[in-house]
């Protein structure tokens, strides 16, 4: 069940035009405020379809088919959020962070300080860093989303 009263509709598209259809719908929204679309996605696993998240009714989605050249039909009925959830991969908090990466802390008591990553615990989404300008290198463990990558480790 959607937290926001949204439904998910599957829109059949011409093969290999999935991303173009997404972009064309986004463009369409600028001139058609009557559509209330929250998000649109084209998972690579789902060839020939895009998924539209909206509180709008089925009939409104059929209008999209008439307005977008590569949109062919709306699949009858709604898809539940649970059915599409596996297409979504939330960004990993430690994505792109390795040993040696230089980061800036963006939260907590050391906010604004630069640090070098010493260890990455992908399972816990935590990293251990040492502050750059500290006299005594004290390891600090923080959540991966509490830092911003400044410079990648040298290969």
């Amino acid at each position, binding site marked *: 069940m959607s937290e926001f009263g949204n439904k998910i509709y599957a829109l059949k598209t011409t093969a290999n035009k999935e991303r173009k259809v*997404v972009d064309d719908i986004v463009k369409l929204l600028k001139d058609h405020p009557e559509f209330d679309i*929250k*998000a*649109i996605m084209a998972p690579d696993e789902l060839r020939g379809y895009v998924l539209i998240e909206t509180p709008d009714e089925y009939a409104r989605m059929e209008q999209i088919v008439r307005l977008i050249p590569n949109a062919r039909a709306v699949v009858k009925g709604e898809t539940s959020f649970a059915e*599409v959830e596996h297409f979504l991969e939330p*960004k990993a908090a430690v*994505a792109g962070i390795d040993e040696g990466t230089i980061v800036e802390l963006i939260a907590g008591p050391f906010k604004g300080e630069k640090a070098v990553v010493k260890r990455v615990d992908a399972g816990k989404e935590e990293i251990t860093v040492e502050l750059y300008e500290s006299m005594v290198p004290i390891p600090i463990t923080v959540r991966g989303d509490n830092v911003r990558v400044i410079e*990648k480790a040298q290969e």
Partner: protein
Amino acid sequence: MVSKKQQNVCRSCHRMVDGDACVMCGSTNLTDDWAGYLVVIDPRHSDIAQKMNIDAPGRIALKVR
């Protein structure tokens, strides 16, 4: 299909990036190795955006390798 270079995305926040750095998080850690395309229009009222931890509208990769 001819393999065409995909647009770069930010490894940290999955946003599509046109220049050398991500305008959302500042990261220069970019990659064109991603799959699945998502456009978030209204992040505050989207279950998909909530699930993806997306809080600003924009073009996003579903999966970044």
